[in-house]
């Protein structure tokens, strides 16, 4: 019933471009909820229990991802939430690279 342009107040661009689907957002419980739109309140309620990925926030809000990103950008700006990139999987150097290093060391020694 409430269309996305009313939710974002007509904006389509998030104030920051740091969100992707797996970015985790966490709410700061000490921030007041007054003056927040119902959707932003809902984001706060969702995230107060722990971190939630952007994709999940979209799912719960039933809003498109790009619209949710605008809301999340606002909330980060106002200090209500903070975003964190997901913990990357451990990156192992490639075998070939290791082999080259080994070869190089052997040649040197």
């Amino acid at each position: 019933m409430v269309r996305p342009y009313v939710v974002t107040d007509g904006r389509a661009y998030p104030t920051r471009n740091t969100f992707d689907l797996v970015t985790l957002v966490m709410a700061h419980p000490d921030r007041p909820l007054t003056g927040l739109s119902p959707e932003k309140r809902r984001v706060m309620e969702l995230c107060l229990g722990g971190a939630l990925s952007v994709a999940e926030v979209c799912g719960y809000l039933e809003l498109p991802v790009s619209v949710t990103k605008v809301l999340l950008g606002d909330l980060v700006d106002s200090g209500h939430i903070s975003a964190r990139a997901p913990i990357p999987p451990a990156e192992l150097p490639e075998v070939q690279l290791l082999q080259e290093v080994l070869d190089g060391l052997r040649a040197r020694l």
Partner: protein
Amino acid sequence: MTDHISEAVSWCLAAALLVVLVLLIRQRQITAGVRRRNATLEESLRARDEEVRHLVDVRLPSIADALSQPGPLPGLRDEKLAGTAFAQSLHAVMEQFTRAVDKAQSRADASAKAALKASMRAVQGLANEQQVSISEMQERHDNPDVLRDLLEIDHANAQFGRRAQAIAVLCGSWPGRQRLASSLTDVVRGAKSRIRDYQRVQVHALIDVAVVSRVVEPAVLAVAELLDNAARHSQPNTSVEVSLQPVHNGACIVIDDAGVGMDGLEVQRAAGLLSGQRAVDVVRLGDPPQFGFAVVGLLAGRYGFSVSVDTRSPYGGVRAVLFLPTELLTHVDPDARPGTAGQDPEGAEPLHTLPSRRTRPPRRAPHAPTVPAQAQEPSPIPRRAPAQSPIPHQAQAPAAHQAQSPAAHQAQAPHQAQPPAPAPAAPAPEPAPAPAPQLSPDGEGTRVYGTTAGGLPKRRRREAAATPPSGDWTTGAGQTGAADPDTGAFRARSAKETASRMGAFARGTRSGRSATQDSAAHHDEGNRQA
């Protein structure tokens, strides 16, 4: 002798003269009377002529005009004719003419309404279809440039849909959508979505009151028309203030604009339209047609709320007040609504447990990625039994499931983790075995599966779980079908699910009947086992 004769002659003459005189006088009197009468008759004839001309020139056209602006009809021009047979005949002519005009008017109105209604229905359907497509596109595209364009199209489409809807309602059709009971704030914001200058509308005071589902769409449409009026009749740099106020026997939506306001005549006309008592004439809404108040009045009369615009706003414009009586209000429990699983006590602790999507179909399953942090939790904390879950059988099933599946085995594939099916003796109308998909509705490939000696979690790739085709709807049955008695909110049940249920029911009935007929043909209760 001659004297006598002459005397007699003179007497005779005198008498004759007298007679002639008398006759002359009488004749004169008669002539005068006839002349007078003649004059009167002439006068009367002229009066009737004038009266007929008056009828044609003034009185009959006034009947035709009176349909748009009711007022006293002009009477006889010459009061002397009142009560005569002539006046009665004129009256009969007037009445017949009035009837004929009424009939023609109502016929024209009905055909105009029917034509408009049919075409607006088609337009409305297209607008709704387009809205669905736009929503899908908004879901699909992640690019802000695309989103900006889509938002513009969406906005135009919403206004377009509202216009079509308003005209259709004015022509006697229904608002065309049934919605779940929604909060008053959402009603106002839904209305805000449908007007051009939505950014100027400021909504204050979020109160915790909802509108019953029957009235949601009409209220949205009425508020949208009022907001549109307010925004259209005020400067583009002013704002339209909306406040929601709980009152003793209902709630009010107060819309203030800082516009030009309305003068006494306009207020009177608006009050007439808003009362909802008068039938609205589609062909007489002015040029350009002004639908706003007519639609609002019609909806108010039909659904039992009331609207007034006769107060002046403190900002100088008009203050429109839409009053919803208590019987149109309710309280909506956010937990009880499908698609809003976030109020669920578990919804907000995704790092400790898997995100629960029980009350929500996994619409975004392809989007929802694995949150890597989940796999690094040492051991999944046993899921809290959702005792506050609004649906009783849903609350029981996870508890039962938890009792028989300890934490270490929680990560099994859904078909393994299902608790035993309900005892066959119990013919449960809703065979809701367990919301097993709560463990893996998102299709993540990995699960915590025991721990290593060092306390690190072991992961095992889940084997392709061939979920039985019936699993979808059986598990879904736990979530759907329950209606909130207050709000009338039915949980969504997909067409496929419904079809498969009906199919199962039909198959069961058929097999039951055939079994009965085969084994006990003499039983006359054919549906004993059904």
